[in-house]
């Protein structure tokens, strides 16, 4: 990937390897009643990259993530200004089909959230909603489980309850569940927060695999994870986007004092 300091740039610069701008956040602010959670964010996410949003707790990362597929719609008293574009189209346009948006932009939550049903039914939940037939379901489930590197572990017990899986397996199941929708963008909100190091490693490996096909936006659960997997990163503080850039640059030589304080503070 090319190195560009002009991440807000509008055009192409020099010999930059051009990646498609999959989602663009423009002048986006978000409020919970009177509390402003996001302050005028401008940011773009490119296809086939892993972008990490990092920063201290309550800095607005999750809010931005959930705004990207409008899960924030259900929060009472919430409002926003500015726009978010998916392939150049405003996702807050009232004409958007919300369910279509959520299929194209899938999300994995911080804690594993298997529904109390079988492994198969969990993965098939999304495809079933759009009325897929039984035979195609089987293939979809297998493909999704393979992509999430879970297939080998569960292929013999697809009909057992998903609640019986270990935490790491449950989280990969949740990833598979999203992948079964064949989304274009994958949002992950601290997907490894409750997991042991081995599960974390396997999920991170999975993510790097998935990068080939998806746009991945990740809220990492710590900076080490961010530096391990990210292509680009953005640092959030109190609802502000402080700094954006290629991951190696942000994590080794941040330009902003606050970013540096946070990173070095974290490392000791």
């Amino acid at each position, binding site marked *: 990937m090319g190195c560009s300091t002009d991440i807000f740039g509008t055009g192409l610069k020099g010999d930059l390897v051009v990646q498609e701008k999959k989602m663009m956040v423009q002048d986006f602010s978000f409020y919970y009643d009177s509390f402003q959670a996001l302050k005028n964010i401008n940011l773009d996410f490119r296809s086939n990259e892993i972008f990490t949003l990092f920063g201290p707790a309550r800095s607005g990362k999750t809010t931005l993530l959930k705004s990207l*597929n409008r*899960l924030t719609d*259900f929060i*009472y008293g919430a409002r926003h200004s500015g726009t978010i574009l998916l392939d150049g189209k405003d996702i807050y346009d009232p004409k958007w089909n919300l*369910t*279509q948006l*959520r*299929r194209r932009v*899938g*999300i994995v*939550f911080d*804690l594993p*959230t298997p*529904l*109390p*049903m079988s492994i198969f039914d969990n993965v098939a*939940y*999304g495809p*079933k*909603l*759009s009325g897929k037939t039984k035979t195609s379901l089987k293939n979809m489930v297998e493909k999704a489980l393979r992509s999430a590197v879970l297939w080998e572990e569960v292929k013999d017990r697809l009909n057992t309850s998903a609640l019986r899986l270990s935490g790491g397996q449950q989280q990969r199941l*949740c990833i598979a*569940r*999203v992948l079964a*929708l064949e989304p274009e963008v994958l949002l992950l909100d601290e997907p490894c927060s409750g997991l042991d190091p081995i599960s974390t490693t396997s999920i991170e490996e999975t993510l790097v695999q998935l990068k080939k096909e998806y746009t991945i936006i990740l809220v990492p659960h710590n900076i080490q994870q961010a530096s391990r997997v990210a292509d680009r990163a953005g640092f959030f503080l109190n609802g502000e986007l402080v700094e954006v850039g290629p991951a190696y640059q942000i994590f080794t030589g941040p330009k902003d004092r606050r970013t540096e304080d946070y990173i070095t503070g974290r490392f000791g």
Partner: protein
Amino acid sequence: MRSNRLRYVTQSVAKILIWIAALSTIAVMILILFQILREGLPILRLSFFTQSPKSMGREGGILTPIIGTVALTVVAIIVATPLGVGTAVFLREYTRESRISRVIRFGTDCLAGVPSIIFGLFGFVFFVIYLNMGWSILSGGLTLAAMILPTIICTTEEAIKAIPYSFREVSYSLGGTKWQTVTRAILPNALPGIFTGIILSVGRSIGETAAIILTAGSSLVMPTSLFSPIRTMAVHFYILAREGISMEMAYGTGAALILLVLFVNTIANGLLNRYIRHRS
């Protein structure tokens, strides 16, 4: 020092009084069951359940009243369940705290406190006379449905409330619409709670008398359709006892009634406990 001792004396006296209260509550419950079952259980032979009452209930069994109880309960549950579950789903998933949800909640809370004799008057003038259904299974069943509706709404709401928010978030995030989320992620998981509400309502239907006597009548003739009048076990028991037709038969019917209510209640509690344990 003295006042200190006084405080502990007061506490001991209070403790003793509270113990007495708790024990006497248990004692009364046992006395009621004991009295009815002691006199009634010997009457409960198989033929008591398989024969219809003869000569006003002086002889024979309680087959027709059993059928009456079952018929009315079934009608009530069939009518009230979709209404109650629908209302609860609307309140929990389709509205936030708004004027309309407050009005609906106030209405159901009030409905829960309306005495059964008022339901009886209403059922009589509305179903029996105004809608010309006469004293019938249908009139009685619909009146009962109105009575148990608040219970079903309330238990369904509680069951839906107990479902973690994440289930909804997951379903929506996977592209589910609201209705798909309700039918596939919420209701299946609320089912045990809803079922408990239904069982509790069955218990209430079995014991109800005042509303039924005014809407379903007290006929001992075997019903042939939904428009036939009917007598339930509770009504039969009441008539036997109050008109002094047969104390023996009254005790038998009362014992059968109590056993039925105990049975239904045990199921409801068992379900409820399993449900709570399952949840936590």
